[in-house]
């Protein structure tokens, strides 16, 4: 029943749906949005493993912002189980969300698993992709509504 409710609520979620990428816009400035993202990842039961800067030298190159990070997250047991069973997925793990400033707001972006699904039709992985997509949408939605 809980799943039905979640599924119904997802129908009205502003996380960009039915798309290949999951994107949300947070009204929060970058530092607050980053903090909200890390909290949201924790609420989903995952742990942030690393925050990677990918913005070194951007403003010197003429870009308007130097606030661009990639946040990696996962669960050690899940990571080991999935990579043992399906080592071909290792390059896509741990999961990650890109976050970057856009003026006074922040955009967050994650990939769906649509591009992987045709190659791994087994029901266990399809279910795993479903779970990850659902978790990522929940994480992003919490950041979107965070104040």
């Amino acid at each position: 029943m809980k799943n039905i409710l979640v599924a119904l609520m997802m129908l009205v979620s502003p996380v960009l749906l039915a798309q290949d990428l999951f994107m949300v816009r947070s009204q929060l400035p970058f530092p607050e949005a980053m903090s909200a993202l890390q909290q949201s990842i924790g609420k989903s039961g995952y742990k942030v493993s690393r925050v990677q800067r990918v913005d070194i030298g951007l403003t010197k190159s003429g870009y308007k912002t130097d606030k661009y990070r990639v946040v990696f997250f996962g669960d050690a047991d899940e990571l080991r189980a999935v990579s043992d069973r399906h080592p071909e997925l290792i390059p896509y793990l741990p999961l990650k969300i890109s976050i970057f400033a856009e003026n006074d707001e922040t955009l967050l972006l994650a990939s769906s698993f649509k591009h992987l699904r045709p190659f791994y039709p087994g029901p266990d992985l399809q279910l795993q992709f479903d779970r990850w997509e659902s978790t990522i949408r929940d994480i992003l939605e919490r950041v979107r509504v965070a104040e």
Partner: protein
Amino acid sequence: MHIKDVRITCHAEWITMNLRAVLMVIVTLLLSGVSVAGPNGGAMLYRQNCAVCHGDNGGGGVGIPLNLPDFLAVASDDYLRKTLRIGRPGRIMPAFANLGDTEIDAIIGHIRSWSPQAAPVYNSDPLPGNPERGKTLYARHCTGCHGDEGRGGIGTGVTFSRPREAPVEAPALDNPGFQESVSDAMLKASLLRGREGTPMPSIKVFGLKEKDADDLVAYLRTLNRDVLPEDNSGLEPVILYESAYSLKQTLENLKQAVIGRNFRIIREQYLDQGLAPEGKEDTRRIILYFCNFAFLNDALAIDPRVGLFLPCRITLVKTEHGVQVMSINPKNLSRLFNNSDLDRYCQQMHDMYAEIMEDATL
């Protein structure tokens, strides 16, 4: 009352409670649907589907600005409707096949609320221009921004990926989504009016007249680019090489290969580092992260969402049979982005990964 009766009663209460909750959600959804026809429905749908790229107030972002008075003055509802339906193949803007007609009209109604002007309505008849003469005019006045044969600028949007003075990249006039959406009359109106807030001037500033606009439109209509059939070859999700060397030696080889291609090594770590307790990591799986800042900046100029590819990474995996060297296949991931320029870039990235891995495993 027997235990069984209690159980039945509790179960009935549980069902009632949850049914009530489901009904509340359904009512919410229905109200959302009802409100699609109202003034707030369009705002909600715009927020769900468009704001993340175009901004809450249409000021632009990853996507182009939609709230410019000159844009709203010339863009017909038909143009907006078709644009939402078809998108811009290969230019980031997706086709919103998930939206119904009512929802699309509601979004358009919301966009219209940013301007007091009524939506223009155009005749769909082709204009009687001279494409040869239009081609000459295009080469003289338009190529600088819109490129040869209307290919448009690289990238899109106004902020992160737009460090330049121009607030918006010139659109691809040859894009099949644009060509299908725009009428001759709307093209002409755009040429004559220009678009304040962007580099697009009225062609009148060049001394051009209505007849010249007809000729330009006739030429622009010859630019409709064919959409190539999707090439799915070589799109496996992973690039994989087998190494005959030990894990340690393969890692050293990999570092040399990375440095040899002007990349900087930024980090070496175990796959589960930061997740597994310190000292308990799986030492059979090692990630090497590396970066070339010029390469990175070029990629960000093409698409600000490119962070999902970053930083460059190759993973080593020790198995029972040897060592595997693997990376994502950028060509496969790129398919999610609807960006032809990024596809081309990812082809280069794919080749670069493959060369590095080949060097490391030879």
